[in-house]
């Protein structure tokens, strides 16, 4: 990346959203500013991520040896349930859309705020309420059903599953409110000059995510309510003893929860589309293909839920239908992967921390995606169903990819959000540890699953121990990586170098404003004459959008 010693030193925008209109705690708790709400979502999601990560470490510690290691079997069951619920409902679903999406979408469409700022704040508090109820249920007794709450076990278990169901039900409202807000914002608040075909790819992907949130979440809400009613009153909707069909629960649950995977991965793809352009210093390859394939994934993602039911008693005919439909997701995902790779081709690649995460993302998405295509094949799934192969697969594609994108976003937009730079050297160390730690945690689990180790088991035969130890070792590396990131980011918050406007020389619309952005996003709303990913015409050094502006 070229440096321009002649450009003026980077400036910290003194009047920004962090101190305008006020700085007190109350001004944050009652704020209607989308940027502050986004930051609050991020902080909350990161705290829950730490909690979920702690449970993950305890699970890996327990699986270090066969038999009891650090906890009894019941605690272990509660632990993996809690790990799943916290990571999925409290971290992965809200982290990128509600966190980064809230911060960035209005800026990227040139608006002052989201369409309904009060609903936006409500969404945050609903999220907190759901989290408190779910975690309260965990402290009060916990559940041992796993995050999937499969009937008939979830309707007969004596553990405290009802508060956790209600917590997840309430969290759904938060998801719906945020999705609704984004769709309306994109439709009605785009600044003059930003047409649909000049919408940043981040916004396209978040828009597609919002559609899923709107259409799928209510079904989960109803389903969880039905399970709670069944658990509390025994109405028999899913109880075979009263004529109910437990497989119907799985249909309903996965009608939400399979698209929910795309609620997690589409925002990740949103981040990646921005990062790959900024650090390859090249126009996105095939803008329309990348934009529309987001909608394609959102749409097709609804037609595949039955591949979770191949061995559950679903009809062979349905299994065949769902198996074929599942493959279509691969097409749209592949379109994106090809386009990202083509974007890098002959680009002027800048190997900064976010780019490392992009590479990690590509690897996890590709490896996880290919194993997903394998799992979507009915005959192969019969062998792998409910083994660690599935665990490793979804941790690669859903968790790995999402966390890579989340960390890429955190580093890429850190200067914009805080006005300061993190330490690049430590950034590279952290990124390397996280990517390699993740690979070493889950690669052994593919092998374990293929050899037949079932998921969610407390105990296992001796011959599986070596791979379990390898996995736990990988998890430790991963944990250390996260700790390093936490430390240097906290340091950067106070002592980081001043970033100045657009330190990456990115062409994204969000970098047209100062870092950190002012209260209503732009002091002067730009004309948005060029597209959001156009790198072929670079502006004069030092101007917003210039390469190396702020890199004195």
């Amino acid at each position, binding site marked *: 990346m070229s440096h321009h010693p002649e450009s003026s030193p980077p400036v910290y925008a003194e009047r920004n959203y962090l101190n305008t209109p006020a700085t007190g705690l109350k001004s944050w708790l009652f704020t209607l500013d989308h940027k502050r709400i986004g930051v609050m979502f991020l902080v909350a999601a990161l705290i829950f991520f730490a909690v979920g990560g702690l449970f993950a470490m305890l699970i890996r510690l327990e699986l270090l040896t066969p038999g009891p290691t650090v906890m009894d079997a019941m605690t272990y069951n509660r632990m993996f349930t809690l790990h799943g619920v916290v990571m999925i409902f409290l971290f992965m679903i809200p982290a990128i859309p509600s966190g980064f999406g809230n911060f960035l979408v209005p800026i990227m469409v040139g608006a002052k705020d989201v*369409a309904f700022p009060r609903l936006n704040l409500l969404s945050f508090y609903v999220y907190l309420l759901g989290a408190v109820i779910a975690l309260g249920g965990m402290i009060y007794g916990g559940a041992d059903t796993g995050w999937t709450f499969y009937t008939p076990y979830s309707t007969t278990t004596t553990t405290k599953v009802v508060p956790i169901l209600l917590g997840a039900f309430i969290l759904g409202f938060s998801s719906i409110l945020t999705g609704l807000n984004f769709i309306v914002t994109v439709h009605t608040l785009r600044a003059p000059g930003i047409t649909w075909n000049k919408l940043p790819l981040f916004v396209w992907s978040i828009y597609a995510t919002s559609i899923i949130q709107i259409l799928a979440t*209510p079904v989960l809400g109803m389903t969880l309510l039905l399970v709670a009613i069944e658990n509390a009153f025994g109405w028999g909707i899913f109880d075979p003893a009263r004529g109910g069909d437990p497989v119907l629960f799985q249909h309903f649950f996965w009608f939400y929860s399979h698209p929910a995977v795309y609620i997690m991965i589409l925002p990740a793809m949103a981040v990646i589309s921005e990062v790959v352009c900024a650090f390859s210093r090249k126009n996105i390859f095939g803008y329309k293909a990348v934009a529309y394939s987001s909608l394609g994934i959102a749409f097709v993602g609804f037609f595949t839920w039955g591949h979770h039911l191949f061995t559950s008693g679903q009809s062979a005919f349905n299994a065949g239908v769902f198996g074929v439909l599942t493959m279509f997701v691969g097409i749209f995902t592949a379109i994106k992967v090809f386009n990202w790779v083509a974007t890098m081709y002959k680009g002027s690649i800048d190997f900064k921390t976010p780019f490392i995460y992009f590479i990690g993302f590509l690897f996890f998405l590709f490896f996880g995606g290919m194993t997903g295509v394998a799992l979507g094949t009915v005959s192969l799934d019969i062998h792998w169903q409910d083994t660690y192969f599935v665990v490793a697969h979804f941790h690669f594609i859903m968790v790995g990819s999402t966390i890579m994108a989340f960390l890429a976003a955190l580093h890429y937009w850190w200067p914009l959000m805080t006005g300061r730079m993190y330490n690049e050297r430590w950034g590279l160390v952290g990124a390397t540890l996280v990517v390699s730690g993740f690979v070493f945690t889950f690669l052994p689990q593919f092998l374990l699953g293929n050899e037949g180790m079932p998921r969610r088991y407390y105990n296992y035969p001796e011959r599986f121990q070596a791979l379990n130890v390898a996995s736990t070792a990988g998890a430790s590396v991963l944990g250390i990586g996260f700790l390093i990131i936490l430390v240097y980011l906290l340091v950067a918050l106070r002592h980081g170098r001043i970033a100045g406007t657009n330190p990456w020389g990115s062409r994204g619309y969000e970098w047209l404003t100062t870092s950190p952005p002012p209260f209503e996003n732009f002091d002067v709303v730009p004309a948005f004459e060029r597209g959001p990913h156009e790198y072929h015409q670079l502006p004069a050094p030092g101007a917003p959008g210039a390469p190396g502006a702020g890199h004195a």
Partner: protein
Amino acid sequence: MHSAVAHHFESLEKQGQAQRLGMWLFLATEVLLFTALFAAYGVYRYLYTEAFAQASRGLETWLGGVNTFVLVTSSFTVAMGLDAIVKGKNRRTALLFGLSILMGCVFMVLKGIEYRHHFLHAELPGQFYGGPIAGSGGSMFFALYFLITGLHAFHVVVGMTVLGVIGARAWMGKYDAQYHVPVELAGLYWHLVDLIWIFVFPLIYLI
């Protein structure tokens, strides 16, 4: 600029557009919420066709029918309420909304009579079922019956509350011929409640 325009909207018209789209998106979530129950109804009606037909014949069809007439008419009065505010007649809007709420009450009373009847005859969901139909079909029908009509009744109550608040504000003159988006949105919600009942009626009572 009208005082109702929020700082981040360029005009009242744009804001109204956003609010309408937001309302439609919310209504879509409501539709999907009910769909889970309709899907369960579809599956169990397929599995217990005879039992469902028998249970449905045991219902008081006239109560469902009269309720349909009541709800459709209340939807009409709500629509007329919007028409009144478009012409600037805010008090007439309030009165028409009040009339709609009254019909909502009639609906709820008839529903209550029906529920009481079911309680007396132990036509209840799941483990509480004591009705005449052998096997699981009867209890399953009544589980779905109470879930669908119960969720719908809940929406009727919410809708009456919304109509009440908006009607009261219309009476106080908060809306006029230029600005009446909340009246429109309250109407949309009530029409959706009506729309869902239009499908509930044949599914539960007629087939």
